[in-house]
């Protein structure tokens, strides 16, 4: 079930970003950010009680005005301040429902963006350390066969008995896609396609877990003889040139989704 959901979401985002595949990656990131902001505001309008929020905002405005008008009367200021705190609490309660509704899609978008825009593809002679974690003890040294495609294996292969882990290094060799073949099981690594905005894989997992739903940089693989296996490799972070600065994808997403949400609220007359 989770595997199907995982695939569905990945395909959905692949299609969404298809028109941006040949453009610099920041365009796809900006598009998703703006779309997310807009989407969130639309969901917020449909799920929240706009009438109640509107009324509450007017009341809060009155309470702020009350404080400003009675600055010389501390007792009245305290009374209004107390009311304002209460109104804020009520406001939080009003937006709890829309926030809960938005939370899951937000986490999915976050995971997709991290998987697609959070890391740079392997470059030049950059070495990547791959670590395989075995559930049921390490295989024999001679029993573990590692082959690579689109990569070069840099010896040695290191066995860490205490952790049930095997580590080795790879460097890119030619263009993606890149594969590890661990004892017959194929594991894709790095960028999965040539288009910008496609996922860049940073780990794999042979178990059934919800984790991959929210972290699509992890790819599902078959079990390796001897037990379940998972693994990870770190790829360098990437920055995007936006408005003369060097932004992480998180900064781009938060700023532009917020701007889009604010603009959407203005246009659609949504009370937030």
């Amino acid at each position, binding site marked *: 079930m989770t595997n199907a959901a995982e695939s569905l979401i990945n395909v959905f985002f692949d299609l969404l970003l298809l028109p941006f595949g040949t453009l610099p990656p920041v365009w796809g990131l900006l598009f998703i950010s703006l779309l997310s902001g807009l989407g969130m505001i639309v969901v917020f309008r449909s799920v929240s009680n706009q009438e109640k929020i509107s009324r509450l905002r007017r009341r809060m405005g009155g309470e702020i005005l009350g404080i400003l008008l009675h600055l010389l009367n501390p007792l009245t200021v305290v009374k209004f301040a107390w009311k304002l705190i209460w109104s804020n609490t009520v406001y939080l309660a009003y937006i709890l429902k829309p926030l809960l509704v938005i939370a899951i899609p937000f986490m999915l978008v976050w995971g997709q963006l991290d998987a697609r825009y959070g890391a740079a593809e392997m470059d030049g002679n950059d070495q990547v*350390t791959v670590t395989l974690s075995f559930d049921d003890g390490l295989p024999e*040294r001679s029993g573990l066969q590692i082959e690579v495609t689109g990569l070069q294996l840099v*010896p040695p292969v*290191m*066995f860490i*008995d*205490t952790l049930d882990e095997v*580590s080795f290094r790879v460097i890119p060799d030619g263009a993606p896609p890149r594969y590890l073949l661990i004892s017959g099981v194929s594991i894709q690594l790095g960028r999965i396609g040539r288009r910008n905005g496609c996922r860049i894989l940073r780990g794999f997992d042979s178990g059934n877990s919800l984790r991959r739903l929210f972290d699509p940089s992890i790819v599902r693989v078959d079990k390796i003889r001897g037990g379940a296996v998972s693994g990870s490799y770190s790829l360098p972070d990437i920055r995007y040139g936006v408005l003369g600065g*060097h932004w992480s994808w998180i900064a781009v997403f938060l700023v532009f989704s917020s701007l889009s949400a604010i603009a959407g609220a203005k246009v659609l007359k949504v009370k937030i």
Partner: protein
Amino acid sequence: MKRREFLKLAALSPAALLAMNTGCRSTLSPARRVIVLGIDGMDPFLLNSFIHEGVMPNAAILMASAGLNPLGTSNPPQSPVAWSNFITGYGPDVHGIFDFIHRDPLSRAPYLSTSRVIGPDRIISISDWRLPLTGAKVELLRKGEPFWDRLTDEGIPVSMVKLPVDFPPDKGKAKILSGLGTPDMRGSQGSFTFFTDDAGSITDNTSGGIVVAVRDYGDNCYVCGIRGPENSMRAGNPAMKIEAKVWVDRDADALRIDIQGESILLATGEWSPWVGMRFDAIPNISSVNAIGRFYVKEITPRLKLYLSPLNIDPLNPALPISEPSSYSSDLARDLGPFYTQGFPEDTKALSRGILSDEEYLHQAWIVLSERLDLFHHELSRFREGMLFFYFSSLDLNIHMFYRVLDPGSPLYESTDPRFKGAVRELYSRIDSVIGDALAARDGNTEVLVLSDHGFAPFNRSFNLNTWLAYEGYANITAENERNRDMFAAIDWASTAAYGLGLNCLYINRSDREQNGAVPPEQVRDLLLRLKRDLESVTDPATGRHVISNAYITADYYSGYLPPFAPDMIIGYARGYRSSWETTLGSYPEDVLTDNLDPWSGTHCIDPGAVPGILLSTAPLALRDPNLMDMGKSIASLFGIPVLPSGGRNIFSGSNTG
């Protein structure tokens, strides 16, 4: 004014302005671009011999253009002093840098001469936390106006890459990346860490770095504590620490370093790429970034894991290393992390025997290769103005490998013959840099190659303080403290003079030093007596004079001498230098000893013995150029109306431009 008259005037004005401008120019036509290569320690004798051997074809082209000119250096000929002469056009009496090390005249406590950290003015203390209300800052101690200010004032773009004695970089319109003088993250000039479980390597000697004892408790894991910078937000400024777990696989002869979520796998004999580290001053609130490189010296039978000095991360610098501040991070984004410390080669690790000759040279090539990438990057986008680029490799590597050039070195015979070509290879690589600069020329570009000093052998160490004690100028009262630093052995009340730093001698003046013994009216006579005695010192082993000239600073420099200035500058003869013990104020038994440190070349001797070099595409009008002339001369190539005040114009031969 009628329309026709106005149009006439408008048409004539640019021509008139052009004519006026031409009238202000020197005989040379102004260059649109000037490339200046600052090659620290390039020696005229070595350069000449390598040119004649055919190792340096590009330098030969330049030599054919304006000759190979010895370039007058500073007194003392130490890099911070010499490059300050270059930058300001004046000597130490103006820029205030007399040695690598200065001392507080009152307490005699030594400090780095080029920069200092000034703590915050106001601090709130909560328990053992110290929260600053104002920011701390780093101050450049070099005074004087940099010559490029005149260029930038005229709108000429200036880039100074890895500029020495400019940490923190001058605020202004020039683009600057600090070089020599930039500390590592521990505030030193390069402090390594060596993790080992080899009892024979464990020592409490902290010179140049620390050895950390680690242990494998049977799980093939070593927990290595990495000491970072001091935490000024905690009482007592304890060092910030992070942990790295080092997993070893002895069968594969490899290890994996797990550090702050990153895993680095290395086999024996490998250097890691740059590894980023974050040290928390206040967890999750305030942290500083550093970068370091690991080197696996040995895994079996004993772990020997070397960590380079922690460099300031150019991507997120904890201290100001560039101007504008985004310059270093832009470079790091384009090229990846790079060495930011002023002395990037791990010379101390070689001196301490932590790294072998081969391992050290490997690291030195990494430094040079990184520096070449930086140079090519900057050269490729250099369009207009002045580009200064500094290379440290010759200086530091010849310090360490002069022993392969000089059969008189006590280490000549014992050095592996494989490394005898190391200096030649380095010169050859620098020649390729000169070639790249020449290839980037167009009809309006000049290329200058200059060095701050040459080189000489350092075969014998002179313990200046011991000599002072034997000659009665210092009084040792605690014999068992002789080898302790900071003059622990002597009685100040009966001591007339002391040595500190590489070339400096100070009178223990009663009106300046705490417990000073020499009244001001006796200082002159004492200095004259010291000069005579020092210049007559001979080495019993060779019969040669040890000191060529002992310069009385007040006679040598006519300007104002600050209280931290030395009273005498010792100009050692070729083959001699002050001992390492002298530089920190200890009193070993012997006055003269063989230098058995791989640090076998020096320039901290008499300036006449170690001139630098100047190669130029522009013809020279003066035959005795000096580092102090270079600012004015470079500025003159741009034809600007007001030249920097210091020095002479070597291209026109005048003092005014």
